[in-house]
């Protein structure tokens, strides 16, 4: 049992390497001969790449399934005790060695306690769903083996973060996740837009991670060890200053990874990656890592009051701004991306309010229904061929199963009663209301609670808008271009291949039932208020949609629409304030390096040659000049001799 965390981490890790190296091995002719014939179906190249894809699929899915089983077993061992605040059970895990850095040692410990058990289950299940889904989604993609390998690598990195017992081991997993998100966002790197989005994602998270590393240094320095258990044990003895500094720096990492306000700009652009990736990485797991970290080190954060206030303010701004932005987006995936930013800010608010159990409960339910929404969006996009909602409509008849699943997802997102979202959001709202009394400084608590309620309404609005514009209204059928003579269009009238639909249905189940796993303790007034607000938002959008089904309900925002669509021009601000000046500075550095520093070196060479040039002038061939010089020299010597002897 104690080696399960290690196995859970190692299995996907080995799967990644196996997928990368073995999927096409032995290197038959497949690799070389994907020549022009590749586009005409049925050539040996296609069989080879199809065989490679099948083998890569198996290499990817089986280890993830095994890891899922291990994770469930571990969580079962911990008794799912975390959610109902039960007694913290004994963590299961082992230390596999220590790195002696000469100062604070790094110990390679992997352990699963109740919190990480839960997260482990969420990660492995969503990863399994996405792997299976991707088989159908990227059926004839030549780079599927590397894609599935990177997903396995991501899964192992996320599990490393979840099961890490040492802060630096957690940091290693943390950064490898960033790398995988870079590689997967840039999966279709032919289009430079995707490549740029990937670079942006990596750099913004990397900026946050530097702050995160410094936070770890502060904690490690203060506690004398990087082990999480030791750090948490030493928290009461740490000075307030160290704690605030450490938690604020950790907050930078959290903001980077969980796309919180200052460093959130990368998440909407990350939608350039394939949809399963958005589902796995940018909805359920990686973005949740930040929240998980705060929950993991919650005693440290709880003791640092100023940090919680800052977190509350950032969360408030984040949730409302992102929700409004989601209301004005035309791209379905960007709507869901901004919705994720908003929900994460929601969870951050929950943490700031002082309740990590409610937050983790909402994290898990959100992971489930947001992954569901993304996978459904994938099916819709797969069917329509474009992300833009303006080109969708009336799909409820063509995609019945997806319609049902999406309805469940949006209902859970809005927090309507029977679905899981209602219970977890309610728990967070209760925590925020509780914070009004103590926990936070009054202004921050008030702002937080106010924004939370406003966000519930706006969430209802954008969820309904997306729902209506996608599945209702007139179907905009786009005529396919005239087929080349002799070939006919192969229309796949079926909704989506089973490999895509099965995960969707599977994920719909927790989206509905997960709410009841949280112990069913409801707070009536808060629940009623949230449902009323959600339905109010939905009603307003429904009314404006009813009046003109074709037009975009976002027109309700009026003058605010354009800023909301551009997410309040934060991107342009960063580009103008950070990106462009750095590139200009780089150009300046190269110029100065060439003229000043190198100039000095070349200059010294030139001046030496110049000096020699002067001396050469004396060699003008005039013999008399030489003799005069000679005699003058002799005279000087004579004078010297006479004078000094």
């Amino acid at each position, binding site marked *: 049992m104690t080696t399960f965390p290690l196995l859970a981490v190692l299995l996907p890790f080995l799967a990644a390497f196996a997928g990368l190296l073995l999927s096409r091995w032995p290197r038959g002719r497949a690799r070389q001969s994907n020549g022009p014939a590749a586009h005409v179906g049925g050539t040996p190249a296609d069989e080879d790449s199809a065989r490679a894809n099948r083998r890569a699929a198996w290499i990817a899915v089986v280890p993830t399934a095994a890891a899922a089983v291990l994770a469930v077993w571990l969580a079962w061992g911990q008794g799912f005790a975390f959610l109902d605040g039960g007694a913290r059970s004994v963590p299961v895990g082992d230390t596999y060695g220590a790195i002696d850095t000469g100062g604070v040692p790094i110990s390679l410990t992997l352990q699963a306690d109740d919190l990480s058990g839960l997260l482990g289950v969420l990660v492995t299940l969503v990863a399994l769903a996405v792997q299976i889904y991707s088989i159908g989604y990227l059926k004839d993609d030549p780079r599927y083996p590397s894609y599935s390998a990177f997903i396995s690598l991501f899964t192992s990195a996320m599990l490393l973060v979840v099961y890490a017992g040492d802060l630096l081991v957690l940091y290693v997993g943390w950064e490898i996740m960033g790398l995988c998100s870079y590689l997967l966002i840039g999966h279709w790197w032919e289009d430079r837009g995707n490549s740029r989005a990937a670079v942006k994602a990596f750099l913004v998270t990397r900026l946050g991670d530097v702050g995160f590393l410094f936070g770890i240094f502060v904690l490690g320095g203060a506690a004398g060890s990087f082990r999480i258990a030791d750090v948490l044990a030493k928290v009461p003895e740490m000075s307030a200053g160290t704690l605030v500094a450490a938690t604020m720096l950790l907050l930078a990492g959290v903001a980077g990874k969980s796309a919180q306000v200052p460093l959130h700009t990368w998440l909407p652009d990350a939608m350039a990656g394939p949809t399963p990736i958005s589902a796995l990485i940018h909805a359920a797991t990686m973005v949740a890592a930040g929240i998980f970290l705060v929950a993991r080190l919650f005693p440290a954060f709880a003791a640092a009051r100023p940090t919680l206030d800052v977190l509350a303010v950032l969360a408030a701004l984040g949730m409302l701004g992102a929700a409004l932005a989601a209301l004005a987006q035309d791209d379905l995936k960007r709507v869901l991306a901004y919705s994720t930013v908003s929900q994460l800010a929601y969870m951050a608010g929950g943490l700031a309010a002082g309740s990590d159990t409610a937050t983790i409960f909402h994290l898990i339910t959100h992971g489930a229904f947001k992954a569901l929404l993304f996978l459904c969006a994938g099916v819709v996009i797969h069917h329509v061929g474009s992300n833009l909602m303006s080109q969708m409509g009336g799909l409820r008849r063509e995609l019945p199963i997806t319609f049902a699943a999406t309805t469940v997802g949006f209902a859970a997102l809005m927090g309507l009663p029977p679905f899981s979202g209602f219970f977890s959001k309610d728990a967070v709202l209760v925590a925020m209301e509780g914070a009004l009394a103590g926990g936070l400084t009054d202004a921050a608590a008030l702002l937080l609670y106010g924004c939370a309620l406003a966000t519930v309404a706006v969430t209802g609005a954008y969820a309904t808008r997306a729902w209506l514009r996608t599945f209702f209204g007139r179907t905009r059928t786009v005529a396919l271009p005239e087929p080349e003579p002799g070939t006919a269009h192969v229309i796949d009238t079926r909704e989506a291949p089973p490999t895509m639909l099965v995960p969707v249905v599977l994920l719909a189940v927790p989206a509905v039932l997960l709410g009841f796993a949280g112990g069913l303790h409801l707070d009536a007034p808060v629940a009623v208020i949230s449902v009323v607000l959600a339905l109010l938002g939905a009603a307003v959008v429904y009314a404006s949609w009813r009046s003109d089904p074709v037009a975009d309900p976002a027109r309700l925002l009026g003058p605010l629409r354009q800023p909301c669509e551009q997410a309040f021009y934060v991107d342009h601000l960063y580009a103008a304030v950070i990106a462009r000046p750095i590139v200009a500075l780089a150009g300046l550095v190269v110029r100065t390096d060439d003229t000043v520093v190198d100039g000095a070196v070349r200059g010294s060479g030139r001046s030496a040659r110049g000096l020699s040039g002067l001396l050469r002038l004396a*060699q003008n*061939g005039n013999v*008399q000049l030489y003799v005069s010089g000679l005699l003058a020299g002799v005279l000087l010597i004579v004078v010297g001799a006479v004078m000094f002897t």
Partner: protein
Amino acid sequence: MHIVYPAVVSALLFSIGVYGVLARRNTILVLMSVELMLNAVNLNLVAFDVWLGDRLHSGQVLTLFVIVIAAAEVGVGLAIVLALYRNRRTVDLDYLRDLAEPADGPTPGNPTVTDQAQTQRHTTDDQPVERDHGDGRPAGRGGKS
């Protein structure tokens, strides 16, 4: 007889000779100035010989030898001047600038002479030597000027 007088006279003669050598343009005048310097030396030798009352008269004997050598020297000097005149049409020292450094000197780009570029030897002759044309054709016969 105070030895100071001949010594001063010879010193003056010597420096006049130095002036002549350094200032005169015509080579023959330079030779004359050299003769002057030699005579200054001779005067000195004789003066000191007499002053020291040398039994071997080494001073005066040396003066004789110097006179002989001076004569030989003028002979060879003038032969050189003639050869110089025959080749250069002039005997002015100012125009004989062959010892001068070439104006361009080693190109600043690559201070060391690259081995590929075959060094074009500067000839002392005014007439540039016909270089071997790239296509291996031997240099054409120099036209008579």
